Protein backbone atom coordinates (compact mmCIF):
# COMPACT_ATOMS: atom_id res chain seq x y z
CA UNK A 1 0.00 0.00 0.00
CA UNK A 2 1.18 3.45 -0.66
CA UNK A 3 2.59 5.79 1.92
CA UNK A 4 0.55 8.50 3.53
CA UNK A 5 0.96 11.40 1.21
CA UNK A 6 1.25 14.22 3.63
CA UNK A 7 1.87 17.62 2.32
CA UNK A 8 0.70 19.84 5.08
CA UNK A 9 3.97 21.55 5.79
CA UNK A 10 6.76 20.93 8.20
CA UNK A 11 4.50 21.11 11.20
CA UNK A 12 2.93 17.88 10.16
CA UNK A 13 5.86 15.99 11.58
CA UNK A 14 4.33 16.68 14.92
CA UNK A 15 0.72 16.94 13.94
CA UNK A 16 -1.60 14.11 13.05
CA UNK A 17 -0.54 10.76 11.81
CA UNK A 18 2.73 10.45 13.62
CA UNK A 19 1.36 10.06 17.11
CA UNK A 20 1.72 6.28 17.11
CA UNK A 21 4.82 6.22 14.94
CA UNK A 22 7.76 4.53 16.61
CA UNK A 23 10.11 6.35 14.26
CA UNK A 24 8.75 9.68 15.31
CA UNK A 25 8.97 8.73 18.97
CA UNK A 26 12.62 7.86 18.45
CA UNK A 27 13.31 11.03 16.50
CA UNK A 28 11.75 13.23 19.17
CA UNK A 29 13.96 11.53 21.74
CA UNK A 30 17.07 13.12 20.19
CA UNK A 31 18.66 15.68 22.44
CA UNK A 32 19.18 19.40 22.29
CA UNK A 33 21.53 21.55 24.41
CA UNK A 34 19.35 23.65 26.71
CA UNK A 35 19.99 26.34 29.27
CA UNK A 36 17.48 26.76 32.07
CA UNK A 37 16.24 30.33 32.41
CA UNK A 38 14.35 29.60 35.60
CA UNK A 39 14.92 27.43 38.58
CA UNK A 40 12.95 24.19 38.59
CA UNK A 41 12.05 22.86 42.03
CA UNK A 42 12.35 19.22 42.99
CA UNK A 43 13.47 17.94 39.61
CA UNK A 44 17.22 18.00 40.17
CA UNK A 45 17.28 14.21 40.15
CA UNK A 46 16.90 14.05 36.39
CA UNK A 47 20.61 14.71 36.19
CA UNK A 48 22.77 12.97 38.80
CA UNK A 49 25.64 15.38 38.21
CA UNK A 50 23.53 18.25 39.48
CA UNK A 51 23.93 17.18 43.08
CA UNK A 52 20.94 19.25 44.09
CA UNK A 53 17.25 18.67 44.56
CA UNK A 54 16.40 21.61 42.31
CA UNK A 55 17.60 22.52 38.85
CA UNK A 56 19.25 25.92 39.34
CA UNK A 57 18.78 28.74 36.86
CA UNK A 58 21.57 28.72 34.28
CA UNK A 59 21.99 24.95 34.31
CA UNK A 60 23.01 23.55 30.96
CA UNK A 61 21.52 20.17 30.12
CA UNK A 62 20.86 18.20 27.01
CA UNK A 63 17.14 17.56 26.96
CA UNK A 64 15.22 15.34 24.59
CA UNK A 65 13.33 17.25 21.93
CA UNK A 66 9.91 16.54 23.42
CA UNK A 67 10.89 18.03 26.75
CA UNK A 68 12.78 20.99 25.31
CA UNK A 69 9.76 21.78 23.17
CA UNK A 70 7.43 21.75 26.17
CA UNK A 71 9.72 24.08 28.08
CA UNK A 72 10.14 26.43 25.19
CA UNK A 73 6.59 27.40 24.37
CA UNK A 74 5.90 31.01 23.57
CA UNK A 75 3.96 31.64 26.74
CA UNK A 76 6.95 31.41 28.95
CA UNK A 77 10.33 30.16 28.01
CA UNK A 78 11.82 28.07 30.79
CA UNK A 79 14.82 27.11 28.70
CA UNK A 80 16.69 28.53 25.75
CA UNK A 81 18.08 26.12 23.22
CA UNK A 82 21.24 25.88 21.25
CA UNK A 83 21.45 23.99 17.98
CA UNK A 84 22.80 20.45 18.18
CA UNK A 85 26.25 20.65 16.67
CA UNK A 86 25.63 18.86 13.39
CA UNK A 87 22.94 21.31 12.43
CA UNK A 88 25.29 24.25 12.94
CA UNK A 89 26.94 26.22 10.20
CA UNK A 90 30.26 24.39 10.40
CA UNK A 91 28.53 21.12 9.65
CA UNK A 92 26.29 22.67 7.03
CA UNK A 93 29.43 23.76 5.22
CA UNK A 94 30.80 20.25 5.36
CA UNK A 95 27.55 18.92 3.88
CA UNK A 96 27.72 21.53 1.19
CA UNK A 97 31.18 20.44 0.19
CA UNK A 98 30.26 16.80 -0.26
CA UNK A 99 27.12 15.43 1.30
CA UNK A 100 27.78 11.96 -0.01
CA UNK A 101 30.67 11.15 2.25
CA UNK A 102 28.87 12.10 5.43
CA UNK A 103 27.80 9.33 7.76
CA UNK A 104 24.31 10.56 8.53
CA UNK A 105 23.50 7.56 10.60
CA UNK A 106 26.22 8.46 13.03
CA UNK A 107 25.09 12.07 13.17
CA UNK A 108 21.71 10.93 14.34
CA UNK A 109 19.78 8.18 12.71
CA UNK A 110 16.86 10.56 12.23
CA UNK A 111 18.82 13.35 10.68
CA UNK A 112 16.03 14.78 8.52
CA UNK A 113 13.14 14.13 10.82
CA UNK A 114 14.87 15.54 13.87
CA UNK A 115 16.17 18.43 11.77
CA UNK A 116 12.62 19.22 10.68
CA UNK A 117 11.44 19.10 14.26
CA UNK A 118 14.16 21.57 15.18
CA UNK A 119 12.53 24.20 12.99
CA UNK A 120 9.82 24.35 15.60
CA UNK A 121 12.11 26.45 17.80
CA UNK A 122 12.23 29.22 15.24
CA UNK A 123 15.92 29.63 15.72
CA UNK A 124 17.37 32.42 13.56
CA UNK A 125 19.24 29.79 11.56
CA UNK A 126 16.06 27.79 10.90
CA UNK A 127 15.69 28.83 7.25
CA UNK A 128 19.29 27.80 6.60
CA UNK A 129 18.79 24.47 8.31
CA UNK A 130 15.71 23.82 6.23
CA UNK A 131 17.56 24.63 3.03
CA UNK A 132 20.49 22.53 4.07
CA UNK A 133 18.33 19.46 4.81
CA UNK A 134 16.82 19.65 1.33
CA UNK A 135 20.19 20.14 -0.32
CA UNK A 136 21.78 17.25 1.54
CA UNK A 137 19.06 14.89 0.41
CA UNK A 138 19.15 16.14 -3.16
CA UNK A 139 22.88 15.58 -3.26
CA UNK A 140 22.74 12.11 -1.75
CA UNK A 141 19.75 10.89 -3.68
CA UNK A 142 21.53 9.63 -6.81
CA UNK A 143 23.89 7.39 -4.87
CA UNK A 144 21.08 5.95 -2.83
CA UNK A 145 19.02 5.27 -5.92
CA UNK A 146 21.86 3.72 -7.89
CA UNK A 147 23.01 1.56 -5.03
CA UNK A 148 19.50 0.35 -4.38
CA UNK A 149 18.94 -0.48 -8.03
CA UNK A 150 22.27 -1.92 -9.00
CA UNK A 151 23.53 -4.23 -6.43
CA UNK A 152 20.90 -6.51 -5.14
CA UNK A 153 23.30 -9.40 -4.73
CA UNK A 154 26.10 -7.52 -3.07
CA UNK A 155 26.50 -6.88 0.57
CA UNK A 156 24.94 -3.50 1.02
CA UNK A 157 25.68 -2.97 4.68
CA UNK A 158 28.63 -0.69 3.86
CA UNK A 159 26.25 1.53 1.97
CA UNK A 160 23.29 1.41 4.29
CA UNK A 161 25.13 1.93 7.52
CA UNK A 162 25.79 5.52 6.54
CA UNK A 163 22.17 6.26 5.76
CA UNK A 164 19.66 8.12 7.84
CA UNK A 165 16.53 6.12 8.71
CA UNK A 166 14.42 7.81 6.07
CA UNK A 167 17.07 7.18 3.44
CA UNK A 168 17.16 3.58 4.50
CA UNK A 169 13.45 3.23 3.95
CA UNK A 170 13.86 4.69 0.47
CA UNK A 171 16.81 2.44 -0.21
CA UNK A 172 14.96 -0.70 0.82
CA UNK A 173 11.96 0.22 -1.28
CA UNK A 174 14.32 0.47 -4.23
CA UNK A 175 15.82 -2.91 -3.43
CA UNK A 176 12.42 -4.45 -3.12
CA UNK A 177 11.39 -3.16 -6.53
CA UNK A 178 14.49 -4.66 -8.06
CA UNK A 179 14.07 -7.94 -6.25
CA UNK A 180 10.42 -8.23 -7.27
CA UNK A 181 11.38 -7.65 -10.88
CA UNK A 182 14.08 -10.31 -10.74
CA UNK A 183 11.66 -12.75 -9.15
CA UNK A 184 9.26 -12.02 -11.93
CA UNK A 185 11.85 -12.53 -14.66
CA UNK A 186 12.84 -15.90 -13.25
CA UNK A 187 9.17 -16.81 -12.76
CA UNK A 188 9.77 -17.26 -9.03
CA UNK A 189 7.12 -14.63 -8.45
CA UNK A 190 4.40 -16.99 -9.61
CA UNK A 191 4.98 -19.23 -6.70
CA UNK A 192 2.52 -18.98 -3.85
CA UNK A 193 4.60 -18.67 -0.76
CA UNK A 194 4.44 -19.41 2.91
CA UNK A 195 3.57 -16.27 4.84
CA UNK A 196 6.34 -14.19 6.41
CA UNK A 197 5.07 -14.54 9.93
CA UNK A 198 4.86 -18.32 9.65
CA UNK A 199 8.46 -18.44 8.41
CA UNK A 200 9.71 -16.26 11.22
CA UNK A 201 7.76 -18.23 13.73
CA UNK A 202 9.31 -21.48 12.48
CA UNK A 203 12.81 -20.02 12.51
CA UNK A 204 12.40 -18.88 16.07
CA UNK A 205 11.02 -22.21 17.13
CA UNK A 206 13.96 -23.96 15.54
CA UNK A 207 16.59 -21.78 17.21
CA UNK A 208 14.70 -22.20 20.41
CA UNK A 209 14.87 -25.98 20.10
CA UNK A 210 18.55 -25.83 19.19
CA UNK A 211 19.30 -23.81 22.27
CA UNK A 212 17.49 -26.02 24.71
Amino acid at each position, binding site marked *: *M*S*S*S*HDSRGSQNFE*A*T*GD*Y*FSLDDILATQERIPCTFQTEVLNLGYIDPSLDSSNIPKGTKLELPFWLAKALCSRRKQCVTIDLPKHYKEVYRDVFNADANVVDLHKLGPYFYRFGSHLLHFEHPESPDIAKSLLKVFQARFRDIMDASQNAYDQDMSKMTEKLDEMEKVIFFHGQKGLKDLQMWETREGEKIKISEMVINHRKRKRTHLDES
Partner: protein
Amino acid sequence: MATVDDIPFDENGSEEEGEAMTAAEVLGKLEEAWLNEKFAPELLENKSDIVECMMSQIQEMEENIQRAKKGDFKVSLHRMEIDRIRYILSSYLRIRLKKIEKFTSHLLQTEATLEDPCLSAEELHFAKQYQSLLESHMTNMALKHMPPNLQKLDPKLTSK
Protein backbone atom coordinates in the same frame (compact mmCIF):
# COMPACT_ATOMS: atom_id res chain seq x y z
CA MET B 1 -29.14 -29.30 -20.30
CA ALA B 2 -28.31 -25.68 -20.00
CA THR B 3 -24.84 -24.79 -21.04
CA VAL B 4 -22.51 -22.16 -19.77
CA ASP B 5 -23.14 -20.26 -22.93
CA ASP B 6 -26.61 -19.29 -21.89
CA ILE B 7 -25.45 -16.43 -19.70
CA PRO B 8 -27.62 -13.43 -20.34
CA PHE B 9 -25.37 -10.45 -20.55
CA ASP B 10 -27.43 -7.37 -20.45
CA GLU B 11 -30.05 -8.28 -17.92
CA ASN B 12 -27.80 -7.80 -14.95
CA GLY B 13 -25.81 -4.86 -16.18
CA SER B 14 -26.01 -2.07 -13.67
CA GLU B 15 -27.66 1.16 -14.64
CA GLU B 16 -25.49 4.15 -15.26
CA GLU B 17 -27.01 7.31 -16.62
CA GLY B 18 -29.93 5.25 -17.72
CA GLU B 19 -27.88 3.07 -20.00
CA ALA B 20 -27.45 -0.62 -19.40
CA MET B 21 -23.87 -1.76 -19.34
CA THR B 22 -22.74 -5.09 -20.61
CA ALA B 23 -20.99 -7.44 -18.23
CA ALA B 24 -17.75 -6.76 -20.07
CA GLU B 25 -18.16 -3.04 -19.49
CA VAL B 26 -18.80 -3.59 -15.80
CA LEU B 27 -15.68 -5.72 -15.62
CA GLY B 28 -13.75 -2.90 -17.25
CA LYS B 29 -15.09 -0.50 -14.63
CA LEU B 30 -14.06 -2.88 -11.88
CA GLU B 31 -10.53 -3.10 -13.25
CA GLU B 32 -10.36 0.65 -13.41
CA ALA B 33 -11.60 1.02 -9.82
CA TRP B 34 -9.09 -1.60 -8.67
CA LEU B 35 -6.11 0.17 -10.23
CA ASN B 36 -7.22 3.58 -9.04
CA GLU B 37 -7.62 2.29 -5.51
CA LYS B 38 -4.23 0.65 -5.71
CA PHE B 39 -2.43 3.82 -6.65
CA ALA B 40 -4.33 6.30 -4.52
CA PRO B 41 -3.00 6.92 -1.04
CA GLU B 42 -6.45 7.83 0.23
CA LEU B 43 -9.66 5.84 0.20
CA LEU B 44 -11.69 6.46 -2.94
CA GLU B 45 -15.43 6.45 -3.30
CA ASN B 46 -16.85 2.95 -3.04
CA LYS B 47 -18.05 1.13 -6.14
CA SER B 48 -20.29 -1.35 -4.44
CA ASP B 49 -22.72 -1.48 -7.34
CA ILE B 50 -19.94 -2.71 -9.59
CA VAL B 51 -18.73 -5.17 -6.97
CA GLU B 52 -22.22 -6.53 -6.47
CA CYS B 53 -22.84 -6.82 -10.16
CA MET B 54 -19.61 -8.74 -10.71
CA MET B 55 -20.24 -10.97 -7.73
CA SER B 56 -23.59 -11.99 -9.12
CA GLN B 57 -22.10 -12.53 -12.57
CA ILE B 58 -19.58 -14.90 -11.07
CA GLN B 59 -22.21 -16.67 -9.05
CA GLU B 60 -24.42 -17.18 -12.03
CA MET B 61 -21.53 -18.44 -14.08
CA GLU B 62 -20.62 -20.87 -11.31
CA GLU B 63 -24.14 -22.20 -11.25
CA ASN B 64 -24.00 -22.74 -14.98
CA ILE B 65 -20.70 -24.53 -14.64
CA GLN B 66 -22.22 -26.86 -12.06
CA ARG B 67 -24.70 -27.95 -14.68
CA ALA B 68 -22.14 -28.36 -17.42
CA LYS B 69 -20.28 -31.52 -18.30
CA LYS B 70 -17.26 -32.27 -16.18
CA GLY B 71 -13.93 -31.83 -17.86
CA ASP B 72 -15.51 -29.77 -20.58
CA PHE B 73 -12.78 -27.73 -22.16
CA LYS B 74 -14.95 -24.63 -22.19
CA VAL B 75 -15.61 -25.00 -18.50
CA SER B 76 -11.95 -24.64 -17.66
CA LEU B 77 -11.76 -21.34 -19.52
CA HIS B 78 -14.84 -20.09 -17.71
CA ARG B 79 -13.35 -21.15 -14.42
CA MET B 80 -10.09 -19.42 -15.16
CA GLU B 81 -11.97 -16.28 -15.95
CA ILE B 82 -13.86 -16.52 -12.68
CA ASP B 83 -10.55 -16.93 -10.86
CA ARG B 84 -9.22 -13.83 -12.54
CA ILE B 85 -12.24 -11.74 -11.67
CA ARG B 86 -12.35 -13.05 -8.13
CA TYR B 87 -8.72 -12.04 -7.77
CA ILE B 88 -9.48 -8.47 -8.84
CA LEU B 89 -12.48 -8.30 -6.53
CA SER B 90 -10.67 -9.56 -3.50
CA SER B 91 -7.55 -7.52 -4.17
CA TYR B 92 -9.72 -4.42 -4.58
CA LEU B 93 -11.68 -4.98 -1.40
CA ARG B 94 -8.54 -5.92 0.49
CA ILE B 95 -6.78 -2.69 -0.45
CA ARG B 96 -9.82 -0.76 0.72
CA LEU B 97 -10.03 -2.67 3.96
CA LYS B 98 -6.38 -1.98 4.78
CA LYS B 99 -6.93 1.71 4.17
CA ILE B 100 -10.02 1.65 6.33
CA GLU B 101 -8.06 0.07 9.17
CA LYS B 102 -5.34 2.64 8.75
CA PHE B 103 -7.51 5.74 8.66
CA THR B 104 -10.51 4.53 10.65
CA SER B 105 -11.21 7.47 12.86
CA HIS B 106 -10.49 10.02 10.17
CA LEU B 107 -12.82 8.24 7.78
CA LEU B 108 -15.59 7.94 10.33
CA GLN B 109 -15.28 11.62 11.17
CA THR B 110 -15.48 12.80 7.58
CA GLU B 111 -17.98 10.20 6.39
CA ALA B 112 -20.83 12.11 8.00
CA THR B 113 -19.97 15.30 6.16
CA LEU B 114 -19.77 13.74 2.72
CA GLU B 115 -22.56 13.93 0.23
CA ASP B 116 -21.64 10.66 -1.43
CA PRO B 117 -20.46 8.18 1.14
CA CYS B 118 -16.96 6.93 0.63
CA LEU B 119 -17.58 3.68 2.45
CA SER B 120 -20.03 1.04 1.42
CA ALA B 121 -22.63 0.02 4.00
CA GLU B 122 -20.62 -3.09 4.86
CA GLU B 123 -17.39 -1.16 5.08
CA LEU B 124 -19.00 1.43 7.32
CA HIS B 125 -20.18 -1.31 9.62
CA PHE B 126 -16.68 -2.79 9.69
CA ALA B 127 -15.08 0.60 10.34
CA LYS B 128 -17.37 1.28 13.28
CA GLN B 129 -16.74 -2.12 14.80
CA TYR B 130 -13.03 -1.85 14.26
CA GLN B 131 -12.94 1.61 15.78
CA SER B 132 -14.77 0.50 18.88
CA LEU B 133 -12.51 -2.56 19.25
CA LEU B 134 -9.50 -0.30 19.00
CA GLU B 135 -10.80 2.24 21.45
CA SER B 136 -11.88 -0.23 24.06
CA HIS B 137 -8.57 -2.03 23.86
CA MET B 138 -6.63 1.20 24.23
CA THR B 139 -8.78 2.13 27.18
CA ASN B 140 -8.43 -1.22 28.90
CA MET B 141 -4.74 -1.68 28.29
CA ALA B 142 -3.60 1.87 28.80
CA LEU B 143 -5.86 4.85 29.25
CA LYS B 144 -7.82 3.71 32.26
CA HIS B 145 -4.60 3.13 34.19
CA MET B 146 -3.51 6.69 33.63
CA PRO B 147 -4.18 9.77 35.76
CA PRO B 148 -7.72 11.13 35.28
CA ASN B 149 -6.77 14.08 33.06
CA LEU B 150 -4.94 11.81 30.64
CA GLN B 151 -7.58 9.19 30.02
CA LYS B 152 -8.79 10.49 26.68
CA LEU B 153 -7.38 10.01 23.25
CA ASP B 154 -6.98 13.33 21.55
CA PRO B 155 -8.53 12.78 18.12
CA LYS B 156 -6.55 15.71 16.76
CA LEU B 157 -3.38 13.79 17.47
CA THR B 158 -4.39 10.27 16.71
CA SER B 159 -6.59 10.36 13.65
CA LYS B 160 -4.87 10.38 10.36
